[in-house]
């Protein structure tokens, strides 16, 4: 029994993709894994062309919308898919330019079957190629050409399904995420279930982020979605992502996502209301809760920088949306505008946090040293921030104290600490 050739492999793969457009997960599997997979649940597979069905049993594995491809055939399969794609793209572009020219003169002279066939060939081959090489940008572009010409909602939706399958194997593929954004931009104006799509997108990121740590592109995509969400959805996302953040306190991305959601809420609130009465008790409460929550996390999970960075963000929110200027501060606290946060109390709170995070008797542990460093650089940042935005000088915080904390933790970095403190003092 002969080994199938490259073209037969490609035909077989494309046949499988054609027969199941709902494939949601793909993987490249080592030949030795096939036996175990087939043992589990019998042997499915359909035969294509002259190659007997059994030849493919150790090459492709498809079931329950999952597709496995043997690593043994990746190279010939890729070469065949790429060649087929390049030819199809070429023919399509040639045809398109002829078609466009004719279209100007007389649209009816163009036969309708041929462009359809070229389009479907291009979609078929680019699909096979992208499963194997997810960042092949030209292949994604060719699909954009066809999709933007067709303007069919169901085709756009299928593109979301297909690119999700690609992401299941390459969760950090920039081109694939970009394709999804392009599709969403195309359908955003004229689809009735955009909110539902946003929810699914957000879920997809969550799912993939669990499988691939530190996935900047996935989270960047989720942040991008925020501007398409409804106000209600933003609040839901804010609630839902809290749990994930607690389970991944070292991952900055989720905290950044929460920051993005909060900013959207603040923007909306400012937009909807008269600026003078911008105090929004709900937002005030939300910010306060987040602020206290992060403080708890900082104390519980020692030495996690993402938490400190999130606190910086929250503090800028206090300053930007709720802090008062010098005029208000001169009033006794009971006469101050309700929207203002008591800056003195805030500063005291942060000083207390700084003390509790730096007064660690046994600071030999790396986590505690990191915590002290983050606390000190945070205070350094806060000092500069307050002096720049509100002209407030935190007198209770001496730079010499910061310096001793930093050099105690990492004496070998004293050059850096000195430069930083110099920068901090020069305004």
């Amino acid at each position, binding site marked *: 029994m002969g080994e199938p050739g490259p073209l037969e492999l490609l035909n077989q793969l494309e046949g499988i993709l054609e027969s199941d457009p709902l494939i949601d997960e793909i993987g490249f599997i080592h030949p030795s894994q096939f036996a175990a997979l087939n043992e589990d649940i019998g042997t499915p597979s359909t035969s294509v062309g002259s190659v007997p069905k059994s030849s493919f049993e150790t090459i492709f594995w498809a079931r329950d919308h999952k597709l496995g491809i043997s*690593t043994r055939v*990746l*190279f010939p399969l*890729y*070469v065949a898919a*790429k060649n087929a794609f*390049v030819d199809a793209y070429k023919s399509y572009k040639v045809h398109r330019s002829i078609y466009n020219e004719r279209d100007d003169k007389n649209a009816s002279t163009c036969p309708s079957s041929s462009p359809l066939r070229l389009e479907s060939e291009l979609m078929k081959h680019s699909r096979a190629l992208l499963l*194997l*090489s997810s*960042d*092949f*940008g*030209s292949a994604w*572009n060719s699909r*954009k050409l066809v999709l933007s010409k067709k303007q069919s909602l169901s085709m756009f939706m299928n593109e979301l399904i297909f690119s999700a399958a690609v992401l299941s194997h390459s969760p950090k593929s920039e081109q694939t995420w*970009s394709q999804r*954004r*392009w599709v969403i*931009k195309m359908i955003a104006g004229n689809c009735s279930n955009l909110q539902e799509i946003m929810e699914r997108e957000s879920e997809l990121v969550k799912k993939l982020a669990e499988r691939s740590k530190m996935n*900047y592109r996935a*989270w*960047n995509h989720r*942040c*991008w979605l925020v501007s398409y969400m409804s106000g209600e959805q933003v609040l839901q996302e804010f609630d839902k992502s809290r749990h994930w953040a607690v389970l991944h306190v070292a991952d*900055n*991305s989720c905290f*950044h996502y929460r920051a*993005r959601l909060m*900013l959207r809420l603040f923007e909306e609130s400012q937009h909807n209301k008269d600026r003078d009465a911008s105090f929004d008790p709900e937002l005030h409460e939300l910010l306060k809760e987040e602020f206290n929550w992060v403080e708890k996390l900082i104390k519980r999970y020692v030495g996690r*920088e993402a938490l400190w*960075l999130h606190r*910086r*963000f929250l503090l*800028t929110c206090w300053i930007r949306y709720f802090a008062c200027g010098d005029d208000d501060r001169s009033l006794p606290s009971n006469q101050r505008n309700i929207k203002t946060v008591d800056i003195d109390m805030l500063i005291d709170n942060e000083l207390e946090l700084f003390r509790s995070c730096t007064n660690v008797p046994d600071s030999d542990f790396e986590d505690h040293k990191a915590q002290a*460093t983050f606390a000190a*650089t945070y205070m350094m*940042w806060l000092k500069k921030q307050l002096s720049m935005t509100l002209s407030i000088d935190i007198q209770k915080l001496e730079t010499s104290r910061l310096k001793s904390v930093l050099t105690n933790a990492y004496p*070998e*970095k004293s*050059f*850096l600490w000195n*430069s*930083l403190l110099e*920068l901090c003092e*020069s305004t």
Partner: protein
Amino acid sequence: MGELMVEKHVKYILAVEKRKDDFESVVMEHLRLNGAYWGLTTLDIMGKLAAVEQDEVISWVMQCQHESGGFGGNIGHDPHVPCTFLFDLCITSMNSAAMLAFTHFPILTSQNKKHGQTSIKSTHHKRWHSRHWQCVLLRNLGVAVVSLTFQPDIAALQNEDGSFSGDIWGEVDARFSYIAILSLALMHQLDKVDVGKAVKYILSCKNVDGGFGCTPGAESHAGQIFCCVAALAITGSLHHVCYSWWVLSSLIMIDRVHWIDKGKLVKFILDCQDKENGGISDRPDDAVDVFHTYFGVAGLSLLEYPGMKPIDPAYALPVDVVNRVILGR
């Protein structure tokens, strides 16, 4: 401490170039132009550029050009700003007279149309001469949205907010701003876009943690920080003391402050070498690749490791090349 295995790395880079017979190498083929830039620059820094057959590289690179004028990552691939930029870098780092003429071509055409003709073989040859120099610039920037319609309107390369798109499909990213600015700077054409707006856009990508993201409000990323800071440096916007604040804070953020200790960093890079077969990896004992080989050698150059040509941190090209092209020395 070991030493840099220069000869091994040369051998490794040349071998990687030729590798086309397994899945791992072909699946990266859309990045081949990136590979060429990494490989060529690494060789140049180590003073080994003569090891490559220049005519071969040039003729291959030229074939990556798209009919719209932009460059793709390999022959037959769609054009994209990063690839066009890589083309510029590849061409710029090559040392031959023909290449220099080519690099200077857009500049020369605006002053004097005699030069550079022999090095351009494609059918676009005529167009280079029939259109005025803006078209040349458009071709080199590779932003197809303009070059497809051939409106010689430089401002259209840029979006209203000062950002740049990567191609006709409109994805925006601060990295494209860096690339556009660098490509323009290499061609002495920075005054043809709204630099003020471009800088403003880049600054709008800054976050409270001191880093930069790919769009305003996007999470900070070390790669983005490099692109944004370098773009600011090239446009002369990096004069304020707060920028050094950001840079230092960025270093803290990515926890690489100890890298400021030059000796430690040199040792770290040398430990990442494959001492048998050449090449450098992302960390000791990982698999090597040409990307990290470039970063390792470029890093050693920045750290003034003996025998390395100095590299310009913003242009990501050897200083002598930058001097030759930007300053005309």
